[in-house]
């Protein structure tokens, strides 16, 4: 049977993709960030998941204002990197796992999560930047990916508690899939940041630290953080951190924090990253 072994939390700042693609990931500005992921790349080589379930948000790329699904599950056999206005990122096409996707889609709806099914979808930096941070620049991504796109652009994003519950339902779905697959779940986005209007540039490192501690040790409480707290304390775009709770919900109550990295800034954003392994 398929099982979930670990979780990765990771910011998906577009500038990190640009830094990797243009060969400046070792400079004074980006170097310290990419250094924080060196451990992670080694860990990934040991962990060798058969599949990544990747929770991210689309930034008006696959979905413009016409269609805004709160939760959209990728069910395609592949996902091409999208042109976000300056040409598609020069990274490999992301391979999917349509059979597992179909199984998860069915399981979720029967579990009262009425998700949207995407049989064709391009993916933007929200999905490809975390892959770059965790795998570097391979010719092919080392395993297939099942993407889940969450609306965090138009308020309100789904509640943290709902994301947490969805994570639990995703776990149930994955664990009832007959193929022997080791799955790593990614929750992406964050940390504190505001991209817009006069308060742009807001960073709240103390809040970010508390958020990471709660995520690991007391997710029942952390998943209850209200939207107004995200908006006020973590910035209007920091609310995308609810997506980390989908990942957390898919893991055991008991996890071991293998790695934590935090850095300010990447462009306008605080970069946060954690690796969590399931423990009995």
């Amino acid at each position, binding site marked *: 049977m398929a099982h979930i072994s670990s979780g990765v939390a990771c910011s998906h700042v*577009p*500038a990190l993709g640009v830094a990797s693609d243009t060969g400046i990931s070792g400079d004074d500005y980006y170097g310290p960030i990419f250094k924080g992921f060196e451990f992670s790349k080694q860990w990934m080589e040991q962990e060798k998941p058969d599949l990544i379930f990747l929770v991210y948000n689309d*930034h*008006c*790329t696959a979905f*413009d*204002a*016409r269609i805004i699904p709160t939760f959209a599950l990728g069910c395609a056999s592949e996902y091409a990197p999208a*042109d*976000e*206005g*300056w040409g598609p990122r020069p990274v490999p096409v992301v391979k999917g796992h349509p059979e597992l996707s179909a199984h998860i889609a069915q399981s979720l709806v029967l579990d009262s999560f009425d998700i949207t099914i995407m049989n064709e979808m391009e993916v933007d930096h929200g999905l490809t930047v975390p892959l770059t941070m965790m795998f570097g620049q391979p010719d092919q991504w080392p395993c297939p990916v099942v993407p889940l796109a969450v609306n965090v*652009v*138009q*308020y*309100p994003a789904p509640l943290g508690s709902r994301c947490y519950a969805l994570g639990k339902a995703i776990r149930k779905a994955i664990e009832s899939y007959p193929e022997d697959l080791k799955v790593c779940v990614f929750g992406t986005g964050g940390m504190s940041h*505001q*991209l*817009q*209007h*006069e*308060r*742009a*540039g*807001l*960073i*709240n*490192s*103390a*809040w970010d630290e508390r958020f990471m501690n709660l995520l690991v040790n007391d997710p029942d409480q952390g998943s209850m953080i209200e939207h*107004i707290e995200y*908006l*006020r*304390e973590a910035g*209007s*775009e920091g609310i995308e951190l609810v997506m980390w709770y989908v990942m957390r919900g898919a893991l055991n109550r008991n996890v071991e924090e293998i790695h934590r990295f935090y850095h*300010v*800034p990447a*462009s*306008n954003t*605080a970069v946060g990253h954690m690796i969590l392994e399931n423990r009995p």
Partner: protein
Amino acid sequence: MGQQKLYDDIPGTIVFDSDQAAKGYQLNQFCISLRLAPNREAFKENPESYIDQFPMTPEQREAALNQQWNRLLELGGNIYYTSKLAAYHGINFQELAGLMTGKGSTAYREMMVAGGRPIDGNRYKSEWEDK
């Protein structure tokens, strides 16, 4: 519409909620259309006739043509959309933030390198009153 919202008291922030989204639909669709190269070409060739394909308000149209970045947000624009218009003008996210905050690129970049805008003093509009 017009209802008090919990987040109304956050300073320097336009929450892109359903009211704003409804107001800004055509404006945002205009901005996002510039994601694709042929549309950027068409806009470059004739900005006025290109933008007129999107029936927005005269205020939105003016703000878009004149790159009034904060005004665009107030009129229903969302940053992930307006950033495409900015990209068209060769302005990246960080430069755009420099413009919206009134700091300019260099001072804004320095603020970020120094740890960003602190949360203290930036939670409530009341804290900005004697700014």
